[in-house]
């Protein structure tokens, strides 16, 4: 299956546009000089991945992504940037290390390894059509996966208590 065959499907054009937005905003997240802009560009990247979930027929996960990440996590990041007084101006020196090229080399090697592995393993196998409804997901979450679900809720409880303990000032 060549590239001309691949691009002739309409959904692949949509995929290409979404992935351009996704990769572009992700690159800007790790390179931009302004910390607040980095947090806001993360919103674009996460919205791109949520739209990929909708393309894959995973609507509940997509909206959970929008609610949790874009709604809560990014706001938390903005609070963190505010509290730690990270350099928010345009002339923020020393936001990055000087040794960029070794890091870029490691990242490129990671990408090459993973992409080669998946291409060799999966080739051109297609994803079957279909949408997983929220009813099936809920049945599965509260049926077969109910014990992991409870464990995850316990992790959230521990994180809640830990966050309160960490943020509290010492009473002395």
């Amino acid at each position: 299956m060549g590239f001309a065959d691949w691009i002739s499907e309409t959904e692949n054009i949509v995929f290409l546009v979404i992935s351009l937005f996704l990769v572009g905003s992700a690159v800007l997240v790790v390179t931009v000089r302004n910390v607040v802009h980095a947090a806001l560009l993360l919103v674009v990247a996460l919205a791109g991945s949520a739209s990929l979930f909708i393309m894959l027929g995973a609507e509940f996960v997509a909206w959970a992504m929008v609610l949790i990440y874009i709604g809560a996590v990014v706001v938390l990041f903005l609070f963190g940037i505010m509290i730690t007084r990270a350099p928010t101006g345009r002339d923020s020196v020393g936001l990055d290390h000087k040794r960029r090229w070794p890091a870029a080399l490691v990242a490129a090697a990671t990408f090459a390894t993973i992409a080669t592995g998946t291409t060799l393993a999966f080739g051109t196998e297609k994803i079957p059509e279909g949408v997983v409804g929220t009813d099936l997901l809920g049945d599965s979450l509260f049926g077969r996966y109910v014990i992991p679900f409870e464990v995850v809720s316990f992790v959230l409880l521990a994180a809640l208590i830990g966050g309160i303990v960490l943020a509290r000032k010492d009473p002395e």
Partner: protein
Amino acid sequence: MIVNQFLVLAALLFSIGVYGVLVRRNAVLVLLSVELMLAAVNINLVAFGSYIADAFASGQVFALFVITVSAAEVGIGLGIIVLIFRNRSSANVDELDLMKW
């Protein structure tokens, strides 16, 4: 849609996150790059879930678990960063050398 296009995109996103973790000095920005890596893992999980198309929607269930755990991770991580900033008035990861001998 072939499954490999999602996997390659997720690999690209993951390696951008690796670059960010390695190159950023501010701890909040390091956490932002970790979020990019987790988003890449989520894309992988949902793509495999649609590819296998099993009766339990396991890929999506585990993507939800990853979202939950990463929310907890961000809460704790930012709490620790705020605490470090309060104690040392700097949130740069290369100035945190108090565990170096």
